[in-house]
C-alpha cells in the first residue's frame, strides 16, 4: 500500500457518517449539564474521608458538530477532569452528558460512547504501552471493538499522520521522538473513526517547531474526517489558533464561554482578563510592568464561598463573597457568556451592570 492510499473503510464519506449522525446538524454533538465530580481526600488511621476536592462543580456547556471548543484554565481548575468525565474514564457524581441526543448511561452505553469519542493525552510516552509495537498500539482499539481489518486501518492511519508504516510499524514507543509519539497517539485515536476527539494538552510537551507541525496535522485531519475537537491547553495562543469557541474554567467552574474573536476583543470576566494579560508581551520595548494577579490559585479542596474568584479579584464586593454568580449572556452579545456579578444588573454589586472597569 502506498503511503497516501487510505483504505476506504476509514474514509469518513464512505463510512456513512450520515447513519451515525442521529440528531441532525442542529443537535449539538455534546451537551454537558451540571456536571459534578468531587474526589474524596482520605487520611487518618482509618482512612476516612477528610475533605472533598471539588474538581468539577456544576459545569455546563455544549459542543456543536464540527466545531472546536478550546478549554483554558490554570492547573487544578478541572479542565482535565472534565475531559476524563466526558469519555467515561472516571464516573461522574452528578449531571448529564448527552452525546448527539443520547444520554450517557441511558440510551448510550460507555462502550458505544468510546466508539465515537477518543482522547489524546499530554504525556505521549506514558499513554502508550511500552510493550506493544506502534502498529499494535494503533490497531488495539479497533480490535477490541471488533472493527474489520484493524491492522490495515492502523497502517493507513500511520501513513496519514506522517509516519511511514514500513519504517515505524514494528518499532516500540521508546524508539520514537516526542513529536512522533504524539502522532502515534493521534493515529490511535483516529483508528476508531471517532466523531469527537478530546485533546488534553496534546501539544504542550512538544517543542515549538514540532508543535506547529502537529497543529497543522490536527487542522488537516479535522477537515478530512469531519471531526469535532475539544482542545484543552494552558497556552492561549495555541487555543486561539485552533478553536472556534473558548471556555475558561477557574476552580472547577466555568467563568466564561465565548467565540474566539469576541473573547479576544473583550474579556468579560476579571479572571479571563488577568489570564490574558499574563501572556508574555512579545514586545521588548513594552514589557509587562505589573503582574495581573497576586498569589497562586486557591486550593480546590476548600474553594472560596460565593464567587470562587473573589479572593483574587480587584473588583470584589460584599455580594461576591456570598452569592454565586450565574453564567449568562452579555447584553448585546448573547453568544458571549460570563459568570460575574458585574454583568448582572440585579446582582447587588455596587458596579453591577456596567461591565468590568478598565
Amino acid at each position, binding site marked *: 500500500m502506498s503511503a497516501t492510499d487510505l483504505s476506504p473503510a476509514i474514509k469518513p464519506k464512505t463510512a456513512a457518517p450520515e447513519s451515525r449522525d442521529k440528531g441532525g446538524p442542529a443537535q449539538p454533538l455534546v451537551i454537558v449539564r451540571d456536571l459534578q465530580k468531587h474526589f474524596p481526600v482520605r487520611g487518618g488511621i482509618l482512612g476516612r474521608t477528610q475533605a472533598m476536592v471539588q474538581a468539577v462543580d456544576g459545569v455546563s456547556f455544549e459542543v456543536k458538530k464540527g466545531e472546536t471548543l478550546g478549554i483554558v484554565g490554570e492547573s487544578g481548575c478541572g479542565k482535565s477532569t472534565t475531559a476524563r468525565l466526558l469519555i467515561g474514564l472516571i464516573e461522574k457524581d452528578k449531571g448529564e452528558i448527552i452525546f448527539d441526543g443520547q444520554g450517557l448511561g441511558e440510551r448510550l452505553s460507555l462502550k458505544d460512547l468510546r466508539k465515537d469519542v477518543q482522547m489524546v493525552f499530554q504525556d505521549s510516552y506514558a499513554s502508550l504501552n511500552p510493550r506493544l509495537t506502534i502498529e499494535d498500539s494503533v490497531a488495539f482499539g479497533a480490535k477490541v471493538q471488533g472493527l474489520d481489518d484493524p491492522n490495515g486501518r492502523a497502517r493507513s492511519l500511520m501513513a496519514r499522520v506522517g509516519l511511514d508504516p514500513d519504517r515505524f510499524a514494528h518499532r516500540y514507543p521508546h524508539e520514537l521522538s516526542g513529536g512522533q509519539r504524539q502522532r502515534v497517539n493521534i493515529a490511535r485515536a483516529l483508528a476508531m473513526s471517532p466523531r469527537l476527539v478530546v485533546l488534553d494538552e496534546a501539544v504542550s510537551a512538544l517543542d515549538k*517547531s514540532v508543535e506547529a*507541525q502537529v497543529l497543522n496535522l490536527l487542522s488537516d485531519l479535522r477537515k478530512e474526517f469531519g471531526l469535532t475537537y475539544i482542545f484543552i491547553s*494552558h497556552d492561549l495562543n495555541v487555543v*486561539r*489558533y485552533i478553536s472556534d469557541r473558548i471556555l475558561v474554567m477557574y476552580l472547577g467552574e466555568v467563568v466564561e464561554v465565548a467565540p474566539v474573536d469576541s473573547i479576544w476583543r473583550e474579556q468579560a470576566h476579571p479572571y479571563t482578563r488577568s489570564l490574558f494579560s499574563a501572556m*508574555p508581551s512579545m514586545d521588548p520595548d513594552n514589557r509587562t510592568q505589573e503582574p495581573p494577579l497576586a498569589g497562586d*490559585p486557591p486550593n480546590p479542596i476548600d474553594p472560596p464561598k460565593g464567587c470562587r474568584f473573589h479572593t483574587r479579584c480587584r473588583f470584589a464586593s460584599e455580594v461576591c463573597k456570598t452569592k454565586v454568580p450565574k453564567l449568562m449572556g452579555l447584553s448585546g452579545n448573547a453568544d458571549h457568556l460570563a459568570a460575574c456579578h458585574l454583568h448582572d444588573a440585579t446582582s447587588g454589586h455596587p458596579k453591577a451592570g456596567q461591565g468590568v472597569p478598565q
Partner: protein
Amino acid sequence: MTKLLDIQNLTLRFKGKRTVHAINDVSLSMEQGETLALLGESGSGKSVTLKALLGLLPPKRTEIEGKIEVNGTDVLSLSGKKLQKFRGGEVSMVFQEPALALDPVYTVGHQIAESVMRHKGVSKADAMSTALDMLDRVRIPSANRRLHNYPHELSGGMRQRVMIALALACRPRLLLADEPTTALDATVQIQILLLLRELQKEFGMGVIFVTHDIGVAVEISERVAVMYAGQIVEEGTTSEIIKSAQHPYTQGLLAANLHDVERGARLNAIPGAPPSLETKPDSCSFAPRCPHVTAECRAALPPVFSPAPRRRVACVKAAPAVAAE
C-alpha cells in the same frame, strides 16, 4: 572591569555506550549585571551549558574542552573545597522543578540558613535572620511563618520563590535559571518573571535564563542567544532578535510562537526534528530542515557573521544582509 562570563570554544561530549556531542564550539561572553536568555528546544544544549558552568556534570562520562571563566576564575580547573565555595557563592542556580530541588525533610528556613552558614561562616541565628530577610525580598507573605514550613506545605509559585531566595542568599554575581517558570501557571509565571527582573536590578547580578519560550525571553532578558544542536546560531539584543532575526531557525521559532498568526491559517512549521548529535557536526546542523538550504550549507560549517558589535549569525545567508547595511 573583568567580564562576568567568558566561555571560549567550549566543546562537550558525553561518552558511554554511545557518544553525544552535546555542545560544539560555543563561545559566549557577558558583561557584569547583564541578563541573557539562552533560547532553544530540548536537546539543544542549553541546560548542559549551565551545568558545565557549575561543574555539575559527571566527570567520568564527560569530556570538556575549551575555557569557562566567571569573573576571571577558571571554572574547569576548580575542584573540592574551591568548587564548593564557587557553587552557591559566586554562581548559583534555580531549577525548573522546585519540588524536586528542595529537600523535603528540612524546613525552607533551615535550607536557606544552611547555605548562608556554609558560605559566610555566620551563626545559625544570624543565618536564620538572613533567611527571613530573603523570604521577604522574594515577596512571600507572612515570611515569619513560612520560614518554618516544609516545601510540601507551599504552593508551586511559593516554592519557586523559596528556590530563588535560596539561590540569592549568598549574593552570587551570576544567577543561572533553568526554565524556572515552565512548570508554573500563566498567572504565576508572570509574577516570578517580574520578581526576577526586580531582584536582578536590586542586586545588580548577571542572569542567564534558559527557556524554550520566546515570550518569556522577551520579558526577562536584554540579550538573547539562540542555540541549536549544541551551537549558538544567533546572538543579539532582545529587540534585534525579535525584530530582525536573520537565522532561518530563529525565524522559524518566532513563527511557531503563534503570537500574531491568523486563525486557521496554515502554520509555517519547521519540518523534521533536531539532529541526534551522535557525530560531530561538520556542516550546518540546521541544513536538513532549512527552507533556504544550498550546497554550501551541506559542505562545511557555516561562517559566523557579525553585522554589529556583540551581534552574530551563523548562516551563509546572513552575508548579503551585512553587505547591504
